[in-house]
């Protein structure tokens, strides 16, 4: 492995790969991406794959809105030899309680102020979009047609191939064991395959970002939280949008392949690195999914898995330089919605690092918000 680099990126998920590409495409040379296992082996490859603009905070809505534009043209932009499978079947967010509906109204006002074309619709209109939706007790729904989902493995593969063509090196099955700093600046990264001298390190490790920050003596306010998902056998296309019911803690989509992917959040999930699949999840998700979408009771589950959210205190990302370790940047804490905003968080971070004009204020994602600043509390997280 090489002995030095301009930039070392730790983490071969969507954030690390997209950041590598955005740096390289702006002319930065000599970039290395270090990945402990294989690309997208962490949270990216385990995520629900949704891409939605229906958020409650302006920051998430802007990042998602602009990322949708990138996903729309990604096959061409990255000259990908496969297909990222971006399907814009929309997101249908259904509301079964008045509190939730009031919050949705506020969220939609934020979305409209940013030009996101979300519609507020009646239960009957929701059922026209998803005929197998249970509208008993449904108050209303919000729908945005340009939301959708993409294949995380192929999106990462596309960034990987485009970055490789621009000269970025990827070292998979390589662990970072230490980071050296001198006089408050990072100087080198120790790995299982040798040391790399570098004055810039980007920590894009998701739930492991805290472990990396500890190597320079900094406590990142992140904690891991397991989330589980399952996939069914493929059937003919019958559901256009991703259906989200925050009341049922449920998301459920049908992929272009025909299979259904779904998950539920568990409010009692402990803060832990456990990624084993549980029996309790199968029963829980099956009950919620067959309540909201009764037709699905006939679908067979073929596989379940789990992954870890990298939860920050306000469920929003951290994009900042580590205090007392100049040259070390953090892009983590995405709290379960990193995949869908990654194309634009990578641009934002790279603009900041290169001293260019940022397309939106990056300070709002800074570490200072956890020590007395203004938190970015997001209400619309599954």
């Amino acid at each position, binding site marked *: 492995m090489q002995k030095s680099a301009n930039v070392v990126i730790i983490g071969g998920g969507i954030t690390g790969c997209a950041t590598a590409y955005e740096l390289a495409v702006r002319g930065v040379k000599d970039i290395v991406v270090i990945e402990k*296992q*294989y*690309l*997208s*082996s962490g949270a990216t*490859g385990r995520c629900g794959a949704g891409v939605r603009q229906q958020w409650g905070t302006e920051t998430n809505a802007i990042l998602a809105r602009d990322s949708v534009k990138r996903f729309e043209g990604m096959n061409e932009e990255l000259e990908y030899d*496969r297909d990222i499978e971006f399907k814009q079947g929309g997101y249908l967010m259904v509301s079964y309680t008045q509190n939730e509906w009031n919050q949705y109204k506020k969220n939609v006002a934020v979305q409209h102020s940013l030009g996101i074309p979300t519609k507020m619709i009646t239960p009957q209109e929701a059922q026209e979009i998803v005929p197998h939706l249970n509208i008993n007790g449904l108050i209303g729904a919000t729908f945005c047609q340009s939301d959708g989902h993409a294949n995380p*493995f*192929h999106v990462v*593969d596309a960034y990987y191939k485009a970055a490789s063509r621009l000269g970025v090196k990827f070292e*998979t*099955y390589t662990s970072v064991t230490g980071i050296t700093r001198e006089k408050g600046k990072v100087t080198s990264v120790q790995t299982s395959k040798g040391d790399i001298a570098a004055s810039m390190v980007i920590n894009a490790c998701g739930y492991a970002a805290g472990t990396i920050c500890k190597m320079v003596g900094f406590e990142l306010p992140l904690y891991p939280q397991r989330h589980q998902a399952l*996939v*069914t*056998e493929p059937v003919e296309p019958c559901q256009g949008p991703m259906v989200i019911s925050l009341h049922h803690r449920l998301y459920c989509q049908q992929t272009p*392949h025909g299979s259904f992917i779904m998950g539920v959040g568990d409010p009692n999930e402990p803060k832990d690195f456990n990624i084993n*699949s549980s*029996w309790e999840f*199968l*029963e829980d*998700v*099956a*009950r919620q*999914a*067959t309540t909201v979408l009764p037709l*699905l*009771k*006939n*679908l*067979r*589950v*073929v*596989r*379940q*898995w789990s992954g870890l959210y990298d939860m920050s205190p306000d469920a929003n990302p951290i994009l900042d330089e580590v205090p007392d370790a100049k040259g070390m940047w953090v892009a983590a804490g995405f709290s379960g919605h990193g995949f869908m905003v990654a194309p634009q968080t990578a641009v934002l971070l790279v603009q900041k690092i290169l001293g260019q004009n940022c397309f939106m204020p990056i300070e709002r994602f800074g570490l200072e918000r956890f020590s007395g600043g203004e938190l970015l509390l997001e209400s619309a997280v599954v």
Partner: protein
Amino acid sequence: MQTKETIVCRCEDITLEEIKSLIDQGYRTIDEIKRVIRAGMGPCQGRTCRMLIAQELAKYYGIPVGEVLMPTFRPTVRPVKLGTFAGGE
């Protein structure tokens, strides 16, 4: 062997030629191949193709099959209806 006509993953219709091509491109494990081309993601969960792909990787890298990294074995063992888990059937 006719690599174009030899099906390795029966659930997803993946041929030996496609598997060999991915290995040539540098996809190093069963997990990586699975994620790019869906081999092993169908109803049988890789019961047939897992070991066939392992053999190809072992040949390519000159290592015993036992040293090829296995993917995680995940539930369910066989396909089960959501309605069964929900307790309705």
